[in-house]
């Protein structure tokens, strides 16, 4: 068992410890009835058991965690796509949802995925138009407008 394969079990154990530590100020029992900490404590205990069981099962070869990482190009593409998503979320309140979505589509298609310009621009216009028609015009969802208007 490689150390990296222990990540899921360790994540569950850390989460269980965080739940335990994060609810210390709450009551476990409130008189005869369960308090706000009752269920988190139950889950924390169950998490600890499952985490340890998973680790033990992996050590004994009864469980396997097949870790599969992308190659360098794939990793760059995933990283760039996630950065574009973050930029989309940052830009929405400033530029508006629909224009920012069109910019996001163009950036993804032209820069990250290296698609030809004409189909990329067409796709960006179609998707932005579809969102505008369905969400803003039809369902009247108040999506953020350009420049906070």
């Amino acid at each position, binding site marked *: 068992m490689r150390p990296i394969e222990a990540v899921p079990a360790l994540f569950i154990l850390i989460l269980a410890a965080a739940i335990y530590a994060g609810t210390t100020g709450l009551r476990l029992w409130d008189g005869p009835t369960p308090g706000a900490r009752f269920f988190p404590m139950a889950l924390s205990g169950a998490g600890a058991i499952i985490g340890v069981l998973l680790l033990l099962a992996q050590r004994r070869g009864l469980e396997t965690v097949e870790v599969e990482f992308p190659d360098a190009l*794939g990793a760059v593409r995933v990283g760039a796509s996630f950065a574009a998503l973050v930029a989309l979320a940052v830009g929405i309140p400033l530029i508006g949802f629909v224009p920012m979505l069109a910019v*996001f589509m163009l950036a993804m298609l032209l820069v990250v995925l290296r698609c030809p310009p004409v189909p990329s621009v067409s796709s960006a216009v179609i998707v932005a138009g579809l969102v505008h028609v369905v969400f803003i015009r039809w369902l009247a969802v108040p999506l953020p407008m350009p420049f906070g208007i």
Partner: protein
Amino acid sequence: MLDQLLIGFSTALLPNNLLFIFIGVLIGQVVGALPGLGPSAGMALLLPLTFGLEPVTAIMMLAGIMYGAQYGGTLTSVLIKVPGEASGVMTAVDGNAMAREGRAGAALAISAIGSFIAGIGSVMAVAVLAPPLASFGLRFNAPEYFLLALLGILAIGSLGGSPIKSLGAALIGLMIALIGVDPLTGTPRLSFDQPILLKGIDFIPVVIGVFGVAEVLHSLERIESVKPIKTRLRDMWLTMEDWRKCRFAIIRGGFIGLFVGIMPGAGASIASLLAYLTERKFSTTPEMFGKGAIDGVASAEAANNSASHGAAIPMLSLGIPGSASTAILLAALILHGIRPGPQLMSQESVLVWGLIASMFVGNVFLLIMNLPMAPVFAALLRIPYVYLAPAILGISLVGAYAATLDMATVWMSLAFGVLGYAMIKFDVPRPPLVLALVLASLMETSLRQALLLSFGSPMIFVERPISAILLCAVVLTIVLPIMSAVRRRRRVGAKPAATGGNGAG
């Protein structure tokens, strides 16, 4: 009763009502297909538009959105593996696996047929059995709800793959649901004084992140090897073999959906999960579950549509909403000056029977709309994935924002996208996380209410008959897989010994 049903049909078949039923199911289909917007959000958004309508017309249209969204949610589940609702998670797993094999049309067709048959069956049950079924549903109280939710969580462990990892993923979902405020006392819990966390973490950003964002990011790693899915017409339609596999799956799923639907608060997600797991027990090809089992899709879809109709039973006969959607339907009744409650069926019989008849009509509309359109929707997968991927990401985030009108939901979707991506990389199943997140509130609230009722004594789970039966089911769900694993290990251990013995001889 037949007279009343005929009066109901004469109301539902009026041209004006037919038009609004059609508009309702069409809007439901669209909002169900948009990631993030489920039936309740769609109904809430469109509630103000019904103010100028006759109450019966308004209720028929809103109900159309409610069950139309169940059909619409199937589209995104099957085509892009982003379930619009928790009840579509199982469909997303098997339906999308079928789509990747070029059988999206068959998955969509069986979903439409399964939903139609189960929907019509449960509407008939609503018509015939509303009062007695509603009183049965009311025999379920906090202990039974807790055990039902616990049974659902434990059953998640048998979804396929490793039970420990599935239960671990379910625990992560339950732990995420703790964030916010304590549901019984209102005390802030795990919110770390952050206003965003005080509201708790909704299902929408989790499902959009863990399924939508994560799936696309994973696909982008090797996008050059992702070929457009070939959708040949002969693979679109159901074969006799498909139909043979699915006919009883639909009936079983429909019954489970109706049974769960009539219990206020249980919801279509538990119904589809239980139906899916039950079907795996009955299936002749259980090894296909999780890899594109058509009977799994049929049972889950039949169950979620049946449950959404079944939830109308406590609403109509007792005035108790069985789901978020029926709560909005109830609000609409009140806004239109109608008092819901046990007297509704006698005092507003035209409205009630008109609504029941409109469900028959609406389901027919949906079948007519969906069945011939299945190949058309499936043909969307012919678009090269390189163009679909950014569109899925963008529209998913629009759906996340539209569900709450809060940018925090968009940020949460991205954060859960990272978690979902890590889960794919570390081979941890994602459906248990999402299903557990949905069941968490019911589980915690009912556990604590049950112990409140019994002054802290756990004997309440044994003393009540239905609860005792459910407790037995919970125990069996834990014990049976352990026993079979031990038996399997003994058998595996015995084989080499026997082989070794022979060899020595």
